C-alpha cells in the first residue's frame, strides 16, 4: 500500500506531471473553485450550481449527453475521413473496406449508432425542457437556438445518410430530395412555379429549381454525393458547433439551469 502511495507521490511531484496539471486534485472548496475556473474546458461551468438544477431526475442529463454524442461523432467522423473518398467510384468500396480491411473497424458502427442516438437524445432534451417550462422568460431565445440545433442535428444525419452510397442511401435521399421539387415557387413541380415565366419560357424548371440546388443535378448522382459530403463534414458541423457555443453561453447568462423562483 505504501509503495503505491510512494509511487503516486513520485509521479505527482515529477516535473512532467506538474508542468501539465498546475494544481493537484483539489481538496478544499477554494481549490475546487479554482480547478473549474482555471480549466479551459471546465470553465463552461460556473463554480457552484444549485442542487435542484443538477438532479438527474430534473435534467435527465440529456443536453450533456447530446453534446457528448456530438463530440463522439466529431472524433469518429474525423477517423472515417482518413479512409473515405466521396466519389462515385470509391465511396462504396471504401465503406466495404472500412468494415473488412481496417483493423478494429468499429468506427463506422460507432458513428452510425451515435448519430441515431443523438437525434433521439436531442428530442428527449427538448421534451424535458418543455416539461419543466424552461423555455419561459428569460430563456426564450435559448429555446430558439435549441430549435436551430435540432434542425442542424437532423440535417447532419440526413447528409450523412447518403455517404455509404448504397441502395438504401440513394433512394432515401431521393425520397427526401423529391420533396424539394414541390417547394412553392422554387420547385418545378411546386404550386406557383408556372407563374414564374416570361412568355412561354419557364424560369423554374427541373434544371434550376430547389431540388437541383440541393442535389446538384436532376437526380441523386455524384454531384449530390460531393455536396452532401462537404456539408456533412465541414459546413453543418461548423454552424452547429457555433450554435452550441451560443447555447451553452446562454444557459449561463440566463441564470444557469432553470428552477422554480
Amino acid at each position, binding site marked *: 500500500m505504501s509503495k503505491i502511495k510512494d509511487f503516486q507521490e513520485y509521479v505527482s511531484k515529477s516535473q512532467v506531471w506538474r508542468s501539465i496539471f498546475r494544481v493537484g486534485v483539489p481538496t478544499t472548496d477554494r481549490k*475546487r473553485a479554482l480547478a*473549474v475556473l482555471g480549466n479551459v474546458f471546465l470553465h463552461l461551468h460556473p463554480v457552484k450550481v444549485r442542487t435542484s438544477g443538477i438532479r438527474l431526475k430534473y435534467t435527465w442529463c440529456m443536453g450533456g*449527453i447530446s453534446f*457528448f454524442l456530438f463530440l463522439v461523432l466529431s472524433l469518429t467522423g474525423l477517423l472515417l475521413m482518413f479512409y473515405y473518398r466521396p466519389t462515385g467510384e470509391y465511396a462504396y468500396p471504401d465503406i466495404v473496406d472500412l468494415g473488412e480491411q481496417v483493423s478494429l473497424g468499429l468506427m463506422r458502427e460507432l458513428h452510425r449508432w451515435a448519430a441515431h442516438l443523438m437525434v433521439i437524445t436531442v428530442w428527449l432534451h427538448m421534451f424535458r425542457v*418543455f416539461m419543466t417550462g424552461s423555455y419561459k422568460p428569460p430563456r426564450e431565445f435559448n429555446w430558439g437556438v435549441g430549435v436551430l440545433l435540432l434542425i442542424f442535428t437532423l440535417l447532419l444525419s440526413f447528409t450523412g445518410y447518403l455517404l*455509404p452510397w448504397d*441502395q438504401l442511401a440513394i433512394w432515401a435521399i*431521393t*425520397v427526401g430530395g423529391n420533396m424539394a421539387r*414541390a417547394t412553392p415557387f422554387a420547385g418545378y413541380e411546386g404550386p406557383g412555379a408556372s407563374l414564374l415565366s416570361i412568355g412561354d419560357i419557364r424560369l423554374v424548371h427541373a434544371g434550376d429549381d430547389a431540388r437541383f440546388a440541393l442535389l446538384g443535378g436532376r437526380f441523386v448522382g455524384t454531384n449530390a454525393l460531393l455536396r452532401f459530403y462537404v456539408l456533412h463534414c465541414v459546413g453543418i458541423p461548423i454552424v452547429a458547433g457555433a450554435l452550441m457555443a451560443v447555447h451553452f453561453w446562454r444557459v449561463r447568462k440566463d441564470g444557469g439551469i432553470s428552477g422554480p423562483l
Partner: protein
Amino acid sequence: MEAVKGFINWISDPRWLFLLSVILFFFMFRLRVLWTVKFGIVALIASLAFFGLSMLDKNFRIISTTPDNVPIVGLIFLMAFFTWLSLKQAFDNDDRLRIGQPPKERTERFEKVMVWPDLVYTEFIATVLLGAVLVIWSIVLKAPLEQPSNPTFSPPVMKAPWYFLGLQEMLVYYDPWLAGVVLPGLIIVGLMAIPYIDRNPRGSGYYTFAERKYEIMVFMFGFMILWLLLIVIGTFLRGPNWNFFGPYETWDVAKVTPMVNVNLSEYIWVKILGVGLPNQWFGAKYMGILLRELFGFILVIGYFTALPPVLANRSRLFNGFYKTLGGARYHVMMFLLLAMMTLPIKMILRWTIDLKYIVSIPEWFFNI
C-alpha cells in the same frame, strides 16, 4: 396465439392505431395511478414480456432487429420511460401544490453545491457509461450496407431516413409541397414561437401538469401522436409501396390496395349536384378551375379565418385564451394550432369518406 396476433395485426392498422392512441393519450392525464412507481414497474415488465413474446414471431423479429430499426425500438421504450418520469414528477408536484407546499424542486432551490466534484463527477460517469454502451452496441450490431447504388433499379421499399418518416407518412394525406415543405416549415416556426405565445408565468422551472394543462397537452399531442407515432407506423408498419402490414405479417411485394379516393369537387359537382365538373362545361382555363374548387376554397379559407373569431366568441375556453393572450398572440396561436389539426382532420376524412383533396388543382400542382 394466432388469434391474438391476428387481433394485434388488425388493431395496428394506422386507422385503429391512431384512434386508439388518441383515446389513450387523452385518458392518461386523468389516471393518476399511471404515474406511480408501482405502475411504472408493472408497465415495464408487461411491455418487456410483450416484446419478448413477440420476438418468437419471425416477422416481428425481422422488423425489430433490422439494424437501423433498433434505435427506434429503443426510442419507444425511452419515450415511454421519460413520459412517465416527467408526468410522475408533475403529478407529485401537483399534489404538493394542492396542499399549499412548494414544488419539490423548490426545496433545493437555494442550496448550492460545488461543480467539482458534484457535477463534474456525474458528467464523467455518464460519459464512461454511455461510451461503454456505444462500444458494446457497435460490436454486437454491424452497420448495414446494401447493394451498391444503382439509379436504374428502385427497390420496392423506399423510405426516407427514420426521423423523417413522419413526413413521409404525411405524404399519404397531403401533397409534397405541404408534407415536405410548408408543414415542416410551420413545425419549426411553431416550435420557436412557443415561448412567445405561452405567456403563462406559472410552471417555469419545475414539473407540473395542473398549472399548464393545455400547453402540455398540445405539445405532447403534436410530439407523441403526430410525430413519433407516425415515425413508428412508418418504420414498422409500412412495407413495399408504402402499404400497411401488421407487426406479425410478411411484407408481400405484390400486395395492392385499391385507390378509391375522391376529391371534394367531384363529391359536390358530380355526386351531389350531378352537373359534372365545371371545367368541362365552363371552360378549362382559370374560371372553370376556380369554380370547380370554389367549395374547397371556401372550406379552407373559412377554416383558417372564420374559426378563430367564432371560437373566441362562442367557446368559453377559447375566449379565455383570447383574453389572456391578446389579439395578435391569439391569432398566431390559432393559425398554428389549426394548421396542426389539419393532419388528424385529413386523416379522418380519408378514412371515413375516402376524401382525397379538399382543393385539387393538379393543373397548377396545387392540392390541399
